[in-house]
């Protein structure tokens, strides 16, 4: 039984990633429906962040990672204009951030993102083309934003029942 919750979360993340490659909010929504509340309505990222702020418990990243490893859905997000971004902490060990190639349009050149340290893995999809935002547990919670100053603004939430 102790192993079933993380496995359920992992399966939910993998399924949501495959089903919603272009919508972070739909991917996170599918995980929430599968693990937390099957009746949860869909919200776009900014609306979901408002909902989480009001109804879930904000947790520090370390605590969120601990909860995710135990099978709890922990959502990370940052509002944006016009669209914010949300993800789910993937149950697994911390891993090096970066390590992927990306096209830097301004120089018309492909660069490789260096690591900015170890972070928990994530499930993340995106309507955009940023490779760091597409993760089936193979990139970290840092990579969708890929900037230390911006990542400092990202918050994480767990369902209220999971706060202790």
């Amino acid at each position, binding site marked *: 039984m102790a192993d079933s919750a993380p496995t359920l979360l992992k399966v939910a993340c993998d399924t949501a990633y495959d089903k919603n490659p272009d919508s972070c909010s739909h991917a996170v929504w599918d995980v929430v429906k599968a693990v937390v509340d099957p009746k949860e309505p869909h919200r776009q990222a900014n609306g979901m962040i408002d909902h989480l702020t009001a109804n879930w418990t904000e947790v520090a990243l370390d605590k969120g990672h601990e909860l995710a490893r135990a099978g709890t859905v922990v959502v990370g997000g940052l509002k944006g204009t016009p669209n914010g971004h949300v993800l789910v902490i993937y149950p697994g060990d911390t891993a090096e951030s970066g390590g992927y190639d990306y096209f830097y349009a301004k*120089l018309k050149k492909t660069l490789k993102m260096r690591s900015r340290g170890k972070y928990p893995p994530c499930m993340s999809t995106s309507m955009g083309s940023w490779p760091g935002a597409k993760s089936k547990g193979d990139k970290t919670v840092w990579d969708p934003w890929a900037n230390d100053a911006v990542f400092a603004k990202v918050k994480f939430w767990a369902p209220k029942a999971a706060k202790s």
Partner: protein
Amino acid sequence: MRTFHHLLISIAVLILLAGHSAHAGGKAFIADETACKNPVPAQLDWLDAAAWGPFSEYVRVCSVRNGKSPVALVLISVWADLYYSDKPARTETAAMPKPLLFTPKGKQVGELPANFPTDPPAELVLHFSDWRKGFPYEIRLCVVSQTASGNQALPPLRYLPASQRYEQVTGAAAATRSGDCRGR
């Protein structure tokens, strides 16, 4: 007499509105050849050689001033685009020292939280504001990026006379403004 008073009040309101709009939506700092030059040797001496040495060829010094007033601040940073232009494709991004703020005489008064003008794929947009006697007491920042973040305003930096340094604002005063990412 009453009409004259109304006129004075109207002028005062217009002046206040003009001042407010200059703070809220003013032009972003433009890092061009007019404002930014190669460092002179004395300016390189202000920097930690171990951190900045590997990038010395790509260091640029930007002069910050309000209009035609004397230079208030000197912003020294590694211009990442110049660095990566000289590198082959698939080069791993480098850990560059954070941009530093100095007085024209070389006293360090702060640092920026992200590289300027760019930290590929992100670009840092700066607004120097709250000018008093030719010195900017506030620096508003925005990260413009092609990542999932989009454009993200960062908590502003405020100059604290007591410490003679810029510090990142916290709490309610850290609120960002809609104009932080505009004006480029």
